[in-house]
């Protein structure tokens, strides 16, 4: 493999990794805070992508969708958490089950809506990012470079929010000991609802950014959910850094796996996950959770 080709493939890998981080961030946040594997994550992602499709069709602007979709999904999260998850707090398995139910309802509603439906659809990238530019004398899609930039910006701003802001401090405290936080006079119900809404908004955001690359079709929810779970499991459950490390590892590994051993392309990322689970069951940056 020539150095030039290796560089291009590395770029492909990094851009896929950035996409994976955007996909997994919401799942990781909700799990870290609420100890709930939000299996509706894939459905939120799918709903975000389809809302983006409708927004782009009516307004003609990708950028409007990039703002409107997270708001819409955030609002949905604000309804789902108090209505369904709150009354099951402490019963983790039941909470996980109800997120499956939410996912089934959302995906079936999407299938029934005539202009969304069961057909394969694509969301075109915004005109400014639709073309290609020359890198080392080769055409490279601008949108993929945008995905890298977007993923890095999202990672940095989430990290800043997490470490520096009051909301971040509350979330970190909630992850460590929600009961104590409640005793200190913090409204944990509101905190949980807001966290869930942010997680749902991030899933919707992922839907908008990933749709021009991965397309819209029945089954995209499961695909996104599986990819996010792999990233989160590899990186470490429930920490933002875990999602970053997981995505940075899985993206390039998947790309180079496809290049060097294409016959195992589908299986490669699962092999990485299995290996990590064997050697470090809590993930690369995972924290060992004390069962109280």
């Amino acid at each position, binding site marked *: 493999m*020539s150095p030039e*080709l290796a560089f*291009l*493939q590395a770029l*492909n*890998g990094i*851009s*896929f990794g950035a996409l994976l981080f955007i996909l997994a961030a919401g799942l990781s946040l909700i799990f870290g805070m609420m100890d709930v594997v939000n299996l509706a994550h894939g459905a939120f992602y799918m709903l975000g992508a389809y809302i983006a499709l409708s927004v782009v069709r009516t307004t003609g602007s990708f950028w409007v969708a990039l703002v409107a979709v997270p708001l819409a999904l955030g609002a949905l999260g604000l309804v789902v958490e108090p209505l369904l998850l709150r009354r099951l707090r402490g019963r983790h398995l039941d909470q996980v089950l109800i997120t499956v139910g939410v996912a089934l309802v959302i995906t079936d509603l999407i*299938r029934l809506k005539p202009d969304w*439906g*069961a*057909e*394969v*659809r*694509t969301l075109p990238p915004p005109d400014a990012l639709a073309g*290609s530019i020359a890198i080392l004398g*080769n*055409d*490279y*899609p601008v*949108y*993929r470079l945008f995905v890298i930039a977007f993923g890095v910006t999202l990672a940095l701003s989430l990290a800043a929010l997490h470490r520096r802001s009051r909301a971040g401090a509350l979330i970190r405290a909630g992850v460590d000991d929600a009961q104590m936080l409640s005793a200190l006079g913090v409204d944990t119900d509101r905190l949980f609802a807001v966290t869930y809404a942010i997680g749902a908004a991030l899933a919707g955001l992922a839907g908008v950014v990933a749709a021009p*690359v*991965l*397309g819209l*079709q*029945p*089954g995209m929810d499961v*695909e996104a959910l599986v*990819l996010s779970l792999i990233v989160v499991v590899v990186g470490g459950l429930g920490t933002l850094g875990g999602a970053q490390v997981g995505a940075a590892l899985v993206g390039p590994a*998947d*790309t*180079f796996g*496809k*290049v060097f051993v*294409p*016959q195992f*392309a*589908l299986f490669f990322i699962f092999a990485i996950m299995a290996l990590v689970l064997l050697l470090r069951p809590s993930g690369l940056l995972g924290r060992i959770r004390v069962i109280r």
Partner: protein
Amino acid sequence: MSRSTTTNELAKRRGYTYRLTRRQFLIASSAAALAACGPAATPSGAPATASAAATAGKPLKLGILLPFTKVYAELGNSMKRSADLYIKSKGGKFANRTVPAPIYEDEANDPQVGLQKTQKFIDQDQVDVMLGIVATPIAYAIRNVVDSAKLIFIETNAGGNALTRATTDCKPACKSKYIFRSSFTSWQISNPIGEYMASKKGVKEAFTFVSDYGFGTESQADFTAGLTKGGGKVTGTLKAPLGNNDFLPFVTQLKAQPTKDIYSFFSGTDAIGYIKAWNQLGMSAAGYKMNGAGFLTEQDVLKEVKEQAVGAITSLFWAVTLDNPENKAFTDLYQKEYNLLPDVFAVQQWDGMRAVDEALQKLGGDTSDKDRFIRALEDTSFKSPRGDFAFDKDTHNPIQDMYIREVKVVGGQAVNVISDKIARVQDPGK
């Protein structure tokens, strides 16, 4: 209780019983159930001569097994629309048999589910003819069940070669006298174009890039054989998993190798992802040529990628632009009914229905003798939207023309324009 008695008395005065007692209900409902069971309860092994008179004029029960959920749902919907339209266009009658709405079942793209639903058609519904099935693994899974139940089955999509060939030990499947196919084999859409490219277009070298599953691998092997026969050679091959999420790494690899003619088998989402990556990496500008099996640029793909597919050369037995009176009538009818263009899957289903209809005309509607029914189907030939349609009597696979099509922009729309034809392509199966 007292209130209901008074209502009953009121009702009686007006001349009807308002409320059934439990006993009355039980008697009435079990009588109804018995009546409903009646025809099904007669022994199915009754002598053919006795039931011969009975089948003519009886409604024709069709069981159609299609995917209505999961990734192929839209194909299933398209084929259902086509089947319903065919029956409607015939006024709900084939020969002297009325054709009520077919019984539709969802195979959910799962061989196990497909098998259960087929069993239901056989045992519970006792259908006269079964049609449908999109994915080859499901067609292979139900082959033996259909064969041993002597149920006439018309495959309206799956193109795995083995379903209409004699194979050693019937692995992974083999032809059956009860199975017909109104679609194609992977050999038919991949082998002739290989030979054509080498002998007519002077392509001496090609690189193959296919979807890594049974049908993709089969197409790749058939194309390679065709190209070799025409005097060309395949310089290398690459496979991407079915439902691949990111095509950039693969197309980057394609661009890093020197053979300019690429032959691909992809459909649906994969085809869209592939064509987009092809454009993003500037493959055409770098001199690479996209060739493939027709599904690479069918309507479901074209309406999403549009002019990004311009220049792609594919082979298929039909195109929406095909110029013949049957195709014009069919596309007009379909468009009038559903306000959308038919696709190749609709054509396959249409011809499957047509074959059953034509056979029934020959039999005077009498389907009681299975062997006569099979012979009638074998002798069926007609002008289809795709051109001349006839079954190969040995294999029950259609003998049909293959069209070489190139994606061009016509009137602002990207469409497949037919540039050449390979006449009467017959699968080499025996």
